[in-house]
């Protein structure tokens, strides 16, 4: 081995040794943080190395994180993380603009034992009421920058919409709980939760989406939609009462009032392979027009020609191409008009035809 190679190895070894020494100087997080909260807090205190206030703290078996503010330099926010059994890394600066809420407690008042107790209580509630076991618990303010304390959010596999929030004061007392409902949060008695008295009701299984396979023919809907309207009508089982027709090269989207309930609108999608899918069903918007129009109420037979001629209606966009087209009632509740959107490499243009296919307007956007 040459002297130069030995020297390189020596330098590399010295570098590794110094890195190891630096790492070994850092405080080490306890292997079981929830059972050694005092040791965890001491490790954070040593790593932070100066008086600090705590804005947020996440606590769990596998990870802990603190967001702190330097008491001597209030513009300095840093994030510290701990992994069980590992040396704590130096803090990462956090930009002042990323701090949404400045509620805080002195580091000395940080009670990780209270956090561990609250997490255990949250897990008891989760197990007793059909929620998933929470991985961790968080100390901090709520999204409105109020109610600084420990907080666990519980969700459930049985119902994607189910959510339970349990909060405690920073010292782990005064637990409160609230369930998410369609009309907002509702309080739930914690004693009842601990006894398993507020179980998640499994959501009713959703019916499989109604679909019809494609017919193997590739379409460009801007060249015509009549045949596909007939196919969707066969699925609906009644003449189509349209709210909105949206036409693109590769997709046709139809908002159709349901024949049995005019206060509901179904959205049918037709793909360029002809596949039909009932994509969604929604309530109509109160006080909106909600007046269906039929295929006979707009120039369906001329539609492809109107779309093809649209670029010529704006001479200052000679290279324009049709981006998409739509049929919907004009104004608040007028006759169904055809709206065609054009695009070139500098911008957009709009062409509008009335219910008889007469040009209403053609202008650059």
């Amino acid at each position, binding site marked *: 081995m040459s002297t130069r190679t030995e020297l390189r190895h020596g330098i590399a070894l010295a570098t590794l040794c110094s890195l190891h020494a630096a790492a070994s100087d850092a405080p080490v997080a306890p292997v079981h943080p929830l059972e050694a909260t005092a040791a965890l807090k001491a490790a954070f205190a040593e790593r932070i190395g100066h008086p600090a206030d705590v804005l947020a703290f996440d606590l769990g078996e596998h990870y802990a994180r603190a967001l702190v503010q330097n008491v001597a330099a209030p513009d300095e926010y840093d994030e510290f993380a701990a992994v069980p059994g590992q040396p704590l890394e130096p803090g990462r*600066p956090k930009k002042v603009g990323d701090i949404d809420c400045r509620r805080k407690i002195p580091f000395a008042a940080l009670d990780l034992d209270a956090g561990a107790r609250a997490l255990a209580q949250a897990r008891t509630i989760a197990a007793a009421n059909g929620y998933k076991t929470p991985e961790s618990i968080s100390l901090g303010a709520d999204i409105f920058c109020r109610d600084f304390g420990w907080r666990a959010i519980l969700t459930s596999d049985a119902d994607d919409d189910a959510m339970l929030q349990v909060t405690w004061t920073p010292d782990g007392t005064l637990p409160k709980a609230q369930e998410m409902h369609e009309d907002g949060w509702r309080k739930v008695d914690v004693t009842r939760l601990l006894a398993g008295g507020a179980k998640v009701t499994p959501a009713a299984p959703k019916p499989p989406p109604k679909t019809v396979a494609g017919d193997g023919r590739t379409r460009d809907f801007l060249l015509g939609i009549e045949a596909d309207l007939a196919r969707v009508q066969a699925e609906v089982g009644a003449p189509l009462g349209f709210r909105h027709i949206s036409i693109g090269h590769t997709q046709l989207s139809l908002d159709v009032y349901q024949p049995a309930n005019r206060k509901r609108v179904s959205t049918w999608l037709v793909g360029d392979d002809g596949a039909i899918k009932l994509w969604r069903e929604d309530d109509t918007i109160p006080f909106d027009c909600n007046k269906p129009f039929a295929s006979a109420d707009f120039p369906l037979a001329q539609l492809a020609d109107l779309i093809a001629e649209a670029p010529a209606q704006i001479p200052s966009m000679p290279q324009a191409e049709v981006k998409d087209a739509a049929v919907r009632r004009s104004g608040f509740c007028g006759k169904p008009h055809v709206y065609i959107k054009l695009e070139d490499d*500098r911008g957009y243009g709009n062409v509008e035809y009335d219910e008889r296919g007469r040009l209403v307007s053609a202008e*650059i956007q």
Partner: protein
Amino acid sequence: MAKTLAKILLALGVGLMVAGAGAEPAAADYGWPNLADFLQQLIGKVGAPVKVYKLEMDRDGKVDLWIQQQAHPDLVDSWEYDHGRIDGPIPVKFDHYPSVAALDYHVIELTMIDFPRLPAMLATARAKLGLPDARVVYIKLERGDSSGFFSVTDTPIWTFALDGPRHDGRVEFDLKGRVLDVDKD
């Protein structure tokens, strides 16, 4: 043509820009693009006058300059400059295309822009923000209303957006380098 070009560049003072690029302290400096080279190449391609819709320089010193097309004053083209390489014209696409009158009002004559001021403005921006080591996020010139005061005049505004590990900041200047607004997170 060469004589006209020389006159324009002299009027612009862009020759000073090269010196300006080296005048800033090295530690916290920004890699200024060679605007003299860019504008010389640009004027060689499009001729004078150059009417600037918007000029933007990014963190890496790449430049995106939007100018009104002389042959079709209703159109705006983008010219990009990346360390010596000029690319354009690239058609600018607007969601809502401005009218010719609006464009005529919005553009800034290239000769009105005092490029040699830029390094000093960057130093001022850092000082005003109290961030001596802040890095450039972007530097932009466009007409608009400054956040610092109410204006309906749609004046040309230089915006220096800077950042550091703990702060983001923005300083606005007028064409003469006067500070209009300072905003620091």
